[in-house]
């Protein structure tokens, strides 16, 4: 078990490294001279050359990569081109904002989704189940930014005018509602469906039937026999959805003008701010990989059968 986890961790680290390579290579391929970009129309040959030195742009690419990687490992993500601030420092707040946003979305979505899923399973093929199944199917279909816009059209200033549609620094707590709602709606459907499917699978399993045949009460059947077997797969899906959030948050932050990593990434792309692009992509991919890894480990830990079946 612990060996298996170690193997996963190793592969996770390997993947992260591969991602770092891809990100670096990709940003190297960006057209234009970084120094020229930073200086923009203020560029004079002397200033450009000085900056090139400063950014070690004259070094071979491999050296640049190693320097960059070394920095990344030590938490030094370089200096932003556009604001000449250390990237790590600059990213701290957006990262916290994004994590808070994701955290709220997870906190709102998960319990409701678990409840709806479990209740659907218990009410299988009844009207609640049908409604929930159709509802999740429909919501899951729509791209999340479309969900966001629909919410804005409906609840935002143009519609019922209940909540603000853009984030502003001095805005109140109500400006969190639409982004959190959008992300929650994006995250919840797969959890609902997985919860329902797993609960049904477990409730239909022979061991639950056997528990019933032993004369166990419904409550015991549900909590002692069914629930522990449903936790594993559901926890995995929850973790996978959280991982998805890492990437999915970009469009939502862009839509709501929310000052998180996704917004930083979009701005950085707009400004061709290479260190910032590198750092935010690496960060998002990193969160994605790590949470996926956690999902993996949960899957391993929760299910003794998986433990045996996985080589």
């Amino acid at each position, binding site marked *: 078990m612990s060996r298996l986890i170690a193997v996963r961790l190793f592969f996770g680290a390997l993947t992260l490294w591969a991602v770092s390579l891809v990100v670096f290579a990709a940003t190297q391929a960006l057209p234009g001279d970084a120094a020229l970009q930073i200086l923009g129309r203020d560029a004079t040959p002397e200033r450009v050359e000085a900056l090139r030195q400063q950014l070690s742009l004259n070094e071979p690419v491999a050296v640049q990569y190693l320097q960059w990687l070394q920095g990344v490992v030590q938490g030094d993500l370089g200096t932003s081109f556009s604001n000449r601030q250390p990237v790590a420092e600059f990213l701290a707040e957006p990262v916290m904002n994004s994590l808070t946003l994701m955290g709220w979305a997870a906190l709102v979505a998960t319990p409701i989704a678990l409840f709806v899923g479990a209740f659907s399973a218990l009410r299988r093929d009844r009207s609640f189940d049908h409604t929930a199944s159709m509802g999740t199917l429909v919501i899951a279909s*729509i791209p999340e930014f*479309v969900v966001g816009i629909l919410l804005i059209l409906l609840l*935002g200033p143009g519609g019922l005018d209940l909540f603000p549609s853009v984030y502003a620094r001095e805005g109140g707590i109500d400006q969190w509602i639409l982004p959190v709602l959008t992300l929650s709606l994006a995250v919840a459907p797969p959890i609902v469906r997985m919860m329902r499917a797993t609960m049904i699978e477990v409730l239909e399993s022979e061991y639950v039937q056997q528990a019933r045949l032993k004369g166990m009460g419904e409550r015991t059947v549900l909590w002692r026999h069914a629930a522990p077997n449903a936790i594993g797969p559901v926890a995995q899906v929850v973790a996978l959805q959280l991982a998805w959030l890492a990437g999915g948050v970009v469009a939502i932050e862009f839509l709501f003008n929310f000052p998180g990593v996704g917004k930083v990434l979009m701005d950085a792309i707009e400004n061709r701010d290479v260190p910032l692009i590198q750092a935010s992509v690496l960060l998002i991919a990193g969160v*994605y990989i790590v949470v996926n890894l956690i999902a993996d480990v949960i899957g391993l830990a929760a299910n003794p059968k998986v433990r045996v079946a996985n080589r």
Partner: protein
Amino acid sequence: MSEPSTETTTGRDRGPGLFRTAWGYGRTKVGVALTGLIVLIAVLGPFVAPYSPTEFVAKPFETGVDGALFGGDERGRDVLTRFLWGGWTLLLLALASAGIGVLAGTVIGIIAGYQRGWLDDVLMRTNDVLLAFPQLIAALLVMSILGPQPWLIVAVIAVSHMPRVARVIREATRKVIEQDYVKAAEAIGLPRHRIMAFEILPNVTSPLLVELGLRLTYSIGVVAVLGFLGMGLQPPTADWGLMINENRQGMGVQPWAVALPVTAIAILTIGANLVTDGLSRASIGIDRGVQK
């Protein structure tokens, strides 16, 4: 010698196929209707549009203009016209990227699933690395480097679908090759590529179709979101995703320019997903039927 079987030898009808079974679900019909509606708009739209998509008929974000039912967009072009023009690009890009991605993923999935060994390992590890990238982030990264171009959008989305499809098809292939008819073909020495093409492929069509549906739905989403983020098709193309991006500023004044494409995308994806769901329900039923 041996007398005819006493089992029910009356020639049972062959069970209905995947499509017929899927069609049996109400949701499939609704899905086909919704998808059909949007496809119709997207395909026929350009022919019935009242204006040219780049013609100016109103002031920017002007509503209540004679001859422009839904008013003007951020430049004063006819919103209805641009809406009617803006669908086929989205559909085409989504279809192409889903098609190519599923095709490539299927080939990889079948090869990896069937060949096993180092090839499987290499393919699947590469897959893992590709999967480690959130789809949208990968697309954004590439678009920002090479600049948004239609073929690139297709390529990036296709590539991001590939590992996901490959994973599913590999699992399906694994299940198929445990079946003895594949071994039967091996025993008589049927070449591997023919086994993959004629024994395995026909038997993974159900997950394949479901995957195609899923990937198509997802492609629509990604193409649209790229347009929305300004990393998809470029102005002055009339494109639903781009329309949302362009006209989002005027949402309070002129909601149509956003509401129309947003609704169309929503209906399209809901429809496609309903069909996919019907297919997947049908395929689960059919697979169960085959096994007893």
